[in-house]
């Protein structure tokens, strides 16, 4: 069984982004970029499945600019066998990414797609579900446990109020949540080895997908700032403020 792991190059999760003064977006010049943290968990899970003998090959894929090659090398340094870059400079929205990924999944003949539940830049939480719909495959979102069986996958999902376990027939799409696993760090020898692993580049146009954005961003603004508060001396003062000033208790 081949597993496809889509990975996204995003602003590093430690960076506090700034909105551009002209309100057209956030300032990404000279900002540290990294693999979307949820996708790191997805790569780890796929690699563990291969190490456990449940998968034959792990293929990482990314859609976007040339620099996304770095993200793919990172995926290969933690164990992906090879990588595919769907290269485009166009603005890609989740529906377009899902269409590109469908084309790659079909070309590669994969049985399972594992990806992060959301990207920490646009916070859309859409791509996996859309890909699953386009492929006509079942989906398991927000996975905290994945068990691959005979022609099926059993997934425990994080839902409101607790956990839910569902069984899907393969092929299927799984989106991963934070508590699925602890991704490993890439060792230096593995980073060196990853440089020699195959990385194929396709142009988005070759896949025959219309990637035109459906949503137009009219403006991007800073959220309203909260006024600074006060540090109080003791609990009694807190109680009186909450009662008499804020009137919330």
């Amino acid at each position, binding site marked *: 069984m081949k597993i496809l792991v889509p990975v996204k190059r995003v602003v590093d999760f430690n960076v506090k982004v700034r909105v551009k003064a002209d309100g057209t977006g956030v300032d990404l010049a000279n900002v540290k970029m990294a693999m979307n943290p949820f996708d790191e968990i997805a790569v780890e899970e796929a690699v563990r499945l291969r190490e456990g003998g449940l998968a034959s090959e792990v293929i990482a894929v990314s859609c976007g600019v040339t620099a996304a090659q770095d993200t793919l090398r990172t995926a290969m340094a933690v164990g992906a066998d090879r990588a595919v870059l769907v290269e485009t400079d166009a603005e890609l929205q989740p*529906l377009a990414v899902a269409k590109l990924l469908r084309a790659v999944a079909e070309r590669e003949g994969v049985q399972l797609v594992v990806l992060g539940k959301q990207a920490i830049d646009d916070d859309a939480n859409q791509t996996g579900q859309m890909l699953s719909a386009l492929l006509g495959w079942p989906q398991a*979102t927000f996975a905290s446990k994945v068990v691959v069986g005979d022609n099926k996958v059993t997934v425990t999902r994080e839902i*409101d109020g607790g956990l839910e376990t569902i069984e899907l027939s393969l092929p299927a799409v799984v989106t991963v949540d934070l508590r699925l696993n602890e991704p490993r760090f890439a060792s230096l020898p593995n980073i060196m080895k990853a440089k020699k692993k195959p990385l194929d580049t396709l142009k988005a146009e070759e896949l025959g997908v219309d990637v035109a954005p459906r949503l137009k961003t009219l403006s*991007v603004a800073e959220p309203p700032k909260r006024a600074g*508060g006060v540090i109080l001396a003791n609990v009694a003062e807190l109680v009186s403020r909450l009662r008499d000033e804020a009137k919330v208790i």
Partner: protein
Amino acid sequence: MSILVIAEHDNQHIKSATLNAVTAAKQIGGDIDIVVLGGDCAAAAAEAAKIDGVARVRVIDAAHYKDQLAENAAIILAQMAGTYTHVLVAATAFGKNLGPRVAALLDVAQVSDIVAVKSPDTFVRPIYAGNALATVQSSDPVKLVTVRTAAFDAAPTGGGSAVVENAPQGPDLGVSKLVSRELAVSARPELGNARVVVSGGRALGSADAFHAVVEPLADKLGAAIGASRAAVDAGYVPNDAQVGQTGKAVAPELYIAIGISGAIQHLAGMTESKVIVAINKDPDAPIFQVANYGLVGDLFELVPQLTASL
């Protein structure tokens, strides 16, 4: 304009998140229908009919919808959605799972997790963990929107008298099935719409300490319990208590953060709260920059004192 709101329910009762989505629908304007898709869900449909401002309740009732798994649900909802200008669902685990699948089947974009309606085609949504707010316009014929519940009041219920009618069923694809659900039973209010939230962080140090320190205060205040990612990862509380970018976004009247430093991913889920109280031993913790009231000191002394004085 005609709007279809996808109800979240357990076949018996409508979940309150649905009411927040109805309020967003009212702000868009136009006729509002609710679809209740389930198995033996007549009770939930009857409840939906009482929500103020709803014209019709459309019921898709069949055994293969009982567990409301996305595959069977999306295919029939996409078919129904085609005649509407908007489809709305709350941005809960249910809505996040289902919405994009319906959108892709309709070949339309989804506008995720909106916090404001600017016009029928223009919405505001947080990006980058809430560090920026994007105003986006959709040109799709059907606008599929998920609604951040904390950003819209619950629509009043009880006064409505919508028509309840059956709608056609779709196929049972047979590709997914529910094995089990482990849902926590709690007498506390739901985190998503509680008036008061008491949240604990890593500084509590253990699950026992979390229960011993946070719970009595929450009991006194009739509050829901939340947590930082660190506290959830450490196993102090179940995953669905997580407040933040990838957990729940809450906006209670009072949010008390105990032993939470205030990583941007946590702040993303709670800075819309009306009044924020932070209790932390580190005076430089970022949580104090968003708190109205702060107490610097040992939470194991301060929180029991607070509990005792309420």
